[in-house]
């Protein structure tokens, strides 16, 4: 008995919208951009847009709440005319150069120390991070008390130990001391970042390299110079790169400790920009101050990233 024949091709049942969506999402070309889009939107809104606004402001005569006009690079030219800005420019390089150099040397030393087998290693490693974790404005306020002319615990200790003549250095009122004070606080704050990142690099160096060096008769100094340091170079380059950018754009420490004084001796781009842009309403000039170093920093980033890539491949 013929029971009939099955049709060889059944008419395709229409896919449900869910199935269709699933099929589309399975395509890499769709899913990839979809995942990236939220991040792109965030970058566009929170980074690209403010940056473009800053660029526009820097090339305009923008004043808070008033219509602005394009003025080309005249803000940048006029700024260079101001004594306080030239001082700020010099301060930024002195502050960044000395701070980063100290943080690098001390950071390597601290990382080497933390890499040893120590008692309470975890607690010590955790507490080293404290300066990095505490909000900068708050910790700087503590330093302000320590350097304050009326309550200075630094001077009190120095005088008590016979290391200083009373009343002790005028930490925040004399230009070299004030610069030393802001640099000290910056080093104190930035050191954990260096130490912990370098420590991560140290831990990743294969033990065999040290064993081989030791077998070849290398002492501790030679092992550090010919094994540790070369292996750390990529990490150091990235840390220095980040720290240079962060230190150049530091604000809190100077704002809380010296307000840019005495006689503008500790102003940095961020504090000077705030004074011009927000306190005096000249947004255009304020933006120009903060963007002054942009070309230089771009070059630093490019050069260091190039160096890192060469080291890596």
């Amino acid at each position, binding site marked *: 008995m013929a029971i009939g024949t099955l049709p060889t091709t059944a008419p395709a049942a229409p896919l449900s919208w869910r199935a269709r969506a699933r099929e589309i999402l399975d395509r890499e070309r769709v899913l990839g951009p979809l995942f990236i889009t939220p991040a792109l939107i965030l970058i566009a809104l929170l980074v690209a847009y403010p940056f473009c606004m800053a660029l526009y402001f820097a090339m305009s005569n923008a*004043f*808070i709440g*008033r219509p602005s006009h394009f003025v080309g690079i005249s803000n940048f030219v006029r700024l260079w005319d101001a*004594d306080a800005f030239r001082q700020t420019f010099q301060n930024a390089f002195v502050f960044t150069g000395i701070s980063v150099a100290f943080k690098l040397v001390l950071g390597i030393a601290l990382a080497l120390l933390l890499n040893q087998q120590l008692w309470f290693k975890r607690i010590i490693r955790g507490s080293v991070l404290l300066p990095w974790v505490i909000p900068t404005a708050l910790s700087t306020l503590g330093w302000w008390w320590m350097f304050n002319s009326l309550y200075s615990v630094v001077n009190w200790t120095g005088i008590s130990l016979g290391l200083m003549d009373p009343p002790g250095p005028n930490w925040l009122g004399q230009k070299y001391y004030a610069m030393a004070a802001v640099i000290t606080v910056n080093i104190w704050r930035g050191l954990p970042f260096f130490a912990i990142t370098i420590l991560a690099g140290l831990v990743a160096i294969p033990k065999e390299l040290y064993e081989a060096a030791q077998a070849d008769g290398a002492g501790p100094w030679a092992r550090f110079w010919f094994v540790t340091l070369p292996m750390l170079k990529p990490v150091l380059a990235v840390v220095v790169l980040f720290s240079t950018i962060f230190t150049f754009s530091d604000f809190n420490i100077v704002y809380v400790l010296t*307000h840019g004084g005495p*006689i503008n001796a500790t102003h940095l781009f961020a504090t000077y920009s*705030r004074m011009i842009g927000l306190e005096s*309403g000249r947004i255009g000039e304020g933006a120009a101050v903060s963007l002054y170093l942009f070309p230089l920093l771009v070059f630093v980033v490019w050069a260091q990233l190039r160096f890192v890539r060469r080291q890596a491949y």
Partner: protein
Amino acid sequence: MAVTRRRFLGTTTLGLAGIVATRTAPAVGQTREISYLCWNNFAPASDKKLSEIGQRFTKDTGIKLKIDHISHMGPQQAKYASEVQTQAGHDLVEMRMHFPWLYEPQLVDVSDVVTELEKKYGKAISSSYEGAHVNGVWRAVPQYHGMFMAAYREDLFKKASLKVPDTWEDLYAVGKELKKMGNPVGIPISQNYDSISTAGPVLWSFGGMEVDKDGKTVKINSPGTVQTIEWYKKMFKDCMEPEVLSWSDASNNESLQQGKAGWIHNPVSAYIVAKQRKLVTADGINHHRSLGGPAGRFETDTPRHIGIWKFSKNVDASKEWIRYLLGKREVYDEYIMAGDAFNLPAYDKLQDHPVLRTDPKFAALKGEGVQYHTYGWPAPPSDKVQLITNAYILPNMIAKAVTGTATKDAIAWAETEMKKIMAG
């Protein structure tokens, strides 16, 4: 009438469309709400009183009032700038000194409110006029003021039989003795506003000025400035300690309160705080009339005003709040009394206010024979004049001179910097 589903949907859709099109909520059910941004007053009881008055205002008028506080100076400026740039934020803002000049195009004309208040209380005081009357229009309503004056350790003066100074030169004579006693004079010479608040009156008293009243001509290079710098030099050497070069706005207060400084130039807040915290120095602190010089007796005043942003959608309700707080005599009195003489009335007829009689140490606040002005006087506080102030050129000129730069070089530096700003 029964409301069918179709009828309900139709009506609400039409209503919503209307609201969206006109961007206005229907009058029925609309609650008027305003927000007011002010600073954390140095007299905290004043903020508490403001909140109380605000609640009564809401009860009496049905207008909801939200009061926000922000810390002094720095954050305030950043907040104002962001509100103006984004055209969003509070309806009313408390403004200090010359802020209405900076934000002139963004502030509602409040001349009508000020006229009413002036009819009732007399003219607004000169410093309020200088700060809030911008190019012929009141851009903010004078609220209160607090002036600088002389605060000193009366107990130490009596102990050493020192005469209360009447001029800046007298202060030098007294200051030398105070320094010998270990209680130096405390006048900041640093990048803060108190430094300008003292340098201004000293400069004016010696006949000097930064910029002429035309608002354009830089006049810092004058015999008055030379006298001012020479006075500062000898004060720095013989009556003060180098720490004044590092001081913040609070340092002179603390130095007097902690028993170090024997004389400071400051508003009455140093004494008020010492009294509130029951410090041992509180009883010994007193005030005396501001000091004079060859050209007269001048003082820095710090008037405060209330402005309304133009982007506010509640201008009328905002004006109603100002009228409630400042226009009702009993409310204004209540508010002023809560400020413990740190906030004084900003109108002529109220100058002899009962708050001055709440403590005998407030007597000097009457300020008889003293001219009160804001920074940069006699120039109108244009944006350029304010940049000169905010760049701390005046205290930096003095700091340079007292730390070794020749007087004429320090003045030449200041003149060059001021001229660059005026030309920019």
